[in-house]
């Protein structure tokens, strides 16, 4: 006979059948004892679960924070590159102004030289020649929209440039195309993904919050189990039952969050 049985008054199978109420009471006691015996084990299991969920929450938080930091760094670098690309386009527009000016002067000066004639005409012709060189140089320096002149193939860019390399009026610098070109050619801009990293960080952090909530549920289960362990009577079942229900809910939630 176990000491438990002794403590309960030595009730055993060899005794005469007890009244129904007494049997029910004995059954309840037995359940109480079983529950009482298993509660410590449950506490250990739930503690482990809480620790695992807490660790997962911590991992998610860490990943989220790290990704947020990476996102911030990418964003700063991206913005810096965008400023540089815009600045390059602005430089192009200034160069385009010179290109268009020199081009028209290069076109007009020889005509004017013909009208003026004599040494002044020769001087104007020389100026026109110099302006032609300057126009071609300026056109070649425009980086992100093609106004360049290829002496070996003068008709290669005749959409916007005349065959002598001067500007063909009516084709002003397209800043939108220039910016597209600048950004596409900006290798430092490639591979930066601040928005995606930010979204991933938010997702990780949300998961972290959910894991923390689940860890809190496990802690609540622990509290209930602890009370269940130290209390006798119907309350023990109450605590244990609540703890069991809550633990199952927490476990299901954990699986949902983990694999969603």
């Amino acid at each position, binding site marked *: 006979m176990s000491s438990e049985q002794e403590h309960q008054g030595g009730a055993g199978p060899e005794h005469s059948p007890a009244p129904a109420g007494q049997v029910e009471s004995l059954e309840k006691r037995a359940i109480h004892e079983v529950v009482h015996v298993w509660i410590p084990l449950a506490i250990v299991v739930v503690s482990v679960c809480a620790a695992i969920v807490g660790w997962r929450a911590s991992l998610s938080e860490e990943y989220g924070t790290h990704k947020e930091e990476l996102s911030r760094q990418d964003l700063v670098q991206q913005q810096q590159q965008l400023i540089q690309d815009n600045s390059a386009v602005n430089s192009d527009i200034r160069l385009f102004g010179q290109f268009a000016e020199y081009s028209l002067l290069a076109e007009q000066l020889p005509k004017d030289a013909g009208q003026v004639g004599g040494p002044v005409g020769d001087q104007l012709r020389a100026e026109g020649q110099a302006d032609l060189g300057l126009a071609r140089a300026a056109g070649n320096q425009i980086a992100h929209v093609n106004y360049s002149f290829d002496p070996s193939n003068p008709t290669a860019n005749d959409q916007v440039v005349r065959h002598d390399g001067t500007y063909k009026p009516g084709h002003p610098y397209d800043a939108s195309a220039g910016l597209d070109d600048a950004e596409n050619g900006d290798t430092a801009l490639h591979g930066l993904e601040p928005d995606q990293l930010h979204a991933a960080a938010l997702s990780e952090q949300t998961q972290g919050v959910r894991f923390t*909530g689940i860890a809190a549920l496990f802690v609540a289960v622990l509290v209930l189990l602890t*009370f269940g362990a130290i209390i006798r009577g119907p309350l023990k079942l109450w605590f244990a039952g609540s703890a069991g229900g809550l633990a199952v809910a927490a476990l299901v939630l954990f699986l949902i969050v983990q694999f969603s």
Partner: protein
Amino acid sequence: MPETGPEIPQVHEIVGEEVEHAGRYGKAIAVAVVVTTLIGALVAWGQVSALRSHDRADAQAERYAALSLTAAAIGRGQAQTQVDRFNLLTQEVRQADNASLFQRFGTSSKATDLLAKRWNSVAAQTEADTPGIARSQDVPYICSRTFEKSCPAANATYSPDQDANFPARLQEAMQWSSYRLSALRDGANQRAEDGESKFVHYAAALTALAVAVFLFGYSLTPNGQPRRRLYSRTATTFVVVAGIYALVQALTPLSQPPDPAATAFANAEVAKNTGDYETAIADYGAAIKLRPRFVAAYAHRAQAEYQAGIPHIGSGQDAQQTTAGPATIAPVEALDRAVEDELHAREEGSGAADLLANLSADLLYRGLLRHSLSDLRAGYGYGQEALDKLRSQQHVANLLVNTEFNQAEISLVLGQPQASQEYALAEQQLHASDVNAEFAAASALTDLNLIAQQYPALRLRTDALQAQVVHSGETYYDGKGKPYWDSPNNNYVSPVPSKVVHFGQVKAEPDPGHAYYQIPDPGNFNPDKDLLSVQWEYRDPVNGEWAVLPEVSGPVLTGQLIKYSDGSFSSNNPSYLSGTSPATCLPPGQYRVRLYANGRLSATGTATARWPALKAVRFREVAGAACVPQNWKALPSSQVGTDAYIAPDLSGGALIFGIPKQAAISYVGSTDALYTLLESAVHGLSGQLTGLQSQTKHSTPFFMSASNGQQEFWSYDHGFVYSGIGSALNGQVYVGVTWSRDNGRTADLFHALSPL
């Protein structure tokens, strides 16, 4: 029956019979513990969520900050590109105009004629290309209706013809998205603060719940049982209070400042920075209505309220202050509104040094105007807070010195003994390398004038302090920190002469564009050995104090004093119009000029200006400006090198005509030739000015700051004409003509013509 599970003590061995038989009470406690624990779990989760919201909002604020900086940089660059395009066009037009002027006034030739045509073609091409470039950048372009055939009103508003502070209007428009992103960042910061605050509230609720769980548990122990009802009731109270508190927190969502508030704020910023204060106030109001805790909107609206209180002519973006810069003080009503907004910003948690400094200054002025000692004391307190912050900050030298002076002024009025020490400290700050000493000194002198006016008993003290401040402003320091002084004739003076200078008389003779004074009787003044400083003051029509005009005040140095053969002196007529930014005309009213010789006030002259309020206008073709009535309009350029503003009924006008000196070289060397050119220009207007008759002519040192200025006065059937000619330092020969039905008005218009 075999035993299962580990050996553990029996329940009754631990808690005893009393607990075992707790009955209904024990059951209730058990339920309470379960409920409390669950509430605790929920609160903990809410707390983590709040912390997460805080972190997210923080991260969002950082993102907005980065985007705002980028938007600002890109906007600035794009605006500058359009300004460059406009400048390129202007240069091309000027090249063409100069060639035309050479053709007309210099040596005429086929080549020069073709040169003008060539540059006109280049300008036409630039004009044609610019809108397409701007469109491809999705930005507005600048055009001028005075010389471009096609110029929509929306684009003309950015031109120098319409934007007195060109190119600020375009630059500000291009900063709009940056301002909006800054406002969104501010909103995200507010959300982060709210998240943090919620986290703290949840922590308080959690603590209460933890205590409750302990009390519930303790009430079940043998030691706790005798007073179990006390423990359980206390615990229940904790649970109820913490539960409700947490529930309130959970049901109160984190505020998300609405985006339209940021949009309204951006509109307000652009309006404020382009001088349209009334629109700015309305837009800040809209932003505050949408987001009642918008600290920046309160702080910036306070600045707009103050500025809106300064008298203006015109309205909206075209409004011009009748005194440039912060010369005069806003009326009490404007100060009331500014102070209210600044206090609101302060209550909402702003501790920015500039806000505190502005609040201190506004309370100082309100305190002086209302004789309110409580305002002065409060102002001193905020000023001290501002100084504590400013002294540890960089790039705030002007704000720091102004606040130092304000503190000294408050101490002076309150009769505090530290006033002298504070003045000495502020005067020392005037010499910091990054301080605009003349503006800071002018502000301090104006404030002392206000103090003298409001507290006449302090006049002797304020006079002495003004002399001290002026002397500090005319003291320079060499590389070794040794003080030195310069006389008007550029002589090194050290030590400062103790001689008391007695000027017989000083005459103030301002015109709308200049601050001219004469010293008919200089007494014992010696420009080689004595120091001289001039302070021009304008009597504030609102509060009545004499406000110092810093642009035309300060030490009188080389070239700023003209000596005449009769021994008298005059100023070289410094242009207020040229010295102010944006260009501003002197308003009508009372003026006072004060001369300080060797650090002492030596003479004062006053004058009353009776001209109407005039607006400053720039000329396009020539680098010059004029002061004209508000309703006068620019005349589209009809002749190369000519700009004009005329009255709607053609009863008056101001015309200026510029020729490159090289083109007019045959005129520059001879007074007769200059008059020939001048008369031909005036006769060119004879269709407008019927019955034109020359009256008098004489040389003048003051036409467009020209060294060889000539002036001719005319009459015509309906009024008077003033004309002048001279070659200015900027390499242009100017011809200026003004006319109207009133002689004095015509003279004022003529005298105000200024080179830029």
